[in-house]
């Protein structure tokens, strides 16, 4: 077996563990971002002026600063400054979660604004409170509409997660680099890393397409256009 192949075989369990770690970081970050994104979008659309300003500032901050800067800021800056002992894994999850939260907020905000005004009005006219209308009428519709954009966001965050290697989180990139620097088999190892990222992207996007089909509203096609 050529050395290039045997190094892949030998390091496979190690890289696979890294892949699971990457998946863990990304799923946790996307979930955190989902909760933040929904809350922020609802607050920006329906909230009072001070709340809108506060939330918009959050969105602008995390959209305007590179993830790498945020990682350093949080991991080396904030967390060490205040002596909070977060692991690299936790730090990267929080930073990516806050970042994608800002982007997801914009996805959901756009969807809320695209929904016909009559939906909220009809809910109000039936005597629903504002929060009932948002929970029962607005969110179920805009979350469906947002799946394609959300799947896009997933693939972006997945690849951003590779930045975690700079603070030593044990994910795909860090582990690949670790093996490569010992074996000097850079080419096959980074090809392997690329394939692992590609596989995670494909699996996630495939699952989200399936989800989109499963929750499709009868009478509407994928793009929300009435059939």
């Amino acid at each position, binding site marked *: 077996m050529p050395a290039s192949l045997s190094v892949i075989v030998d390091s496979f369990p190690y890289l696979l563990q890294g892949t699971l770690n990457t998946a863990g970081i990304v799923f946790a970050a996307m979930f955190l971002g989902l909760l933040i994104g929904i809350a922020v979008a609802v607050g920006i659309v329906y909230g009072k002026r001070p709340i809108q300003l506060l939330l918009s500032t959050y969105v602008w901050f995390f959209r305007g600063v590179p993830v790498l800067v945020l990682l350093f800021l949080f991991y080396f800056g904030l967390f060490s400054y205040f002596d909070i002992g977060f692991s690299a894994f936790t730090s990267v999850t929080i930073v990516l979660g806050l970042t994608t939260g800002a982007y997801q907020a914009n996805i959901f905000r756009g969807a809320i604004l695209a929904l*016909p005004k*009559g*939906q909220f*009005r*009809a*809910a*109000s*006219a*039936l*005597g*629903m*409170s*504002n929060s*009932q209308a948002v929970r*029962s*009428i607005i969110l*179920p*519709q805009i979350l*469906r509409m947002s799946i394609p954009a959300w799947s896009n966001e997933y693939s972006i965050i997945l690849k951003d997660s590779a930045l975690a290697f700079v603070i030593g989180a044990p994910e795909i990139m860090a582990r690949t680099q670790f093996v490569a620097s010992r074996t000097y088999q850079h080419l096959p190892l980074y090809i392997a890393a690329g394939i692992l990222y590609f596989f995670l992207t494909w699996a996630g996007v495939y699952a989200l397409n399936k989800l989109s089909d499963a929750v499709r*509203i*009868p*009478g*509407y096609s994928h793009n929300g256009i*009435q*059939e």
Partner: protein
Amino acid sequence: MTSNTPILKAQAIQKSFDGNTILNGVDVVLEKGEIIVLIGPSGGGKSTLLQCINCLVIPDDGQIELEQQPIDFSNKQDLYRLRQQVGMIFQEFNLFDHLTALDNITIALRKVKKLDRNTAEKRARLELEQVGLGEKGDLYPAQLSGGQKQRVAIARALAMDPKILLLDEPTSALDPDLIGEVISVIKNLAAKGMTMIMATHQISLISTLADHILFMENGQIVESGTPKELLAKGNVNKTQGFCDRLNELATGEQ
């Protein structure tokens, strides 16, 4: 069919958007079982008046009383309570697109009236049958025709047992051949004594259902009276002229 104490009183309702006065001191008094029809040119304030009555649009000034109880516009609970008792039918139906016809009706029964799912579904099926859609409960809005959507919307409003029904041009967004089914549902409601305020250009609804006609123009009620008073032969007034033109349109189309 009318009693003496009004079920709804709106007084001196004032509303402007961005400096444009839409409603300029409008009064409406509605008695139980009465049907008031709002007519007049588009942009005259009919829609805004209806939306002010159930506080979907909060009036800038004026007073609204439901059964002698004044509504505090700054109190959310007051607004929710008012809207639970005043049903509304929209020109563009506004069915919840992600819910079946049945769930369009059950959702408010469950969330607002706190009924359990079974009771809510039973009630919803009853209301769907009343509007002739007993078989369509499992279909989604996108699978229904315009006329069917509007009938589901009516069933949805009625399931809440409203004391008053507000109808904002209920047939205006419908194909001519679908108007009939909605008109007959509305006429049935009238026959059962439903209290209604309806904005419409549908001449058959105006002449046959109205106890009282209000003609609105430029944010004010410029004429008011029974159809007999306003539509008597030889009368020269805005209502008469408006209805004559609607009549010409209606016969012209046939």
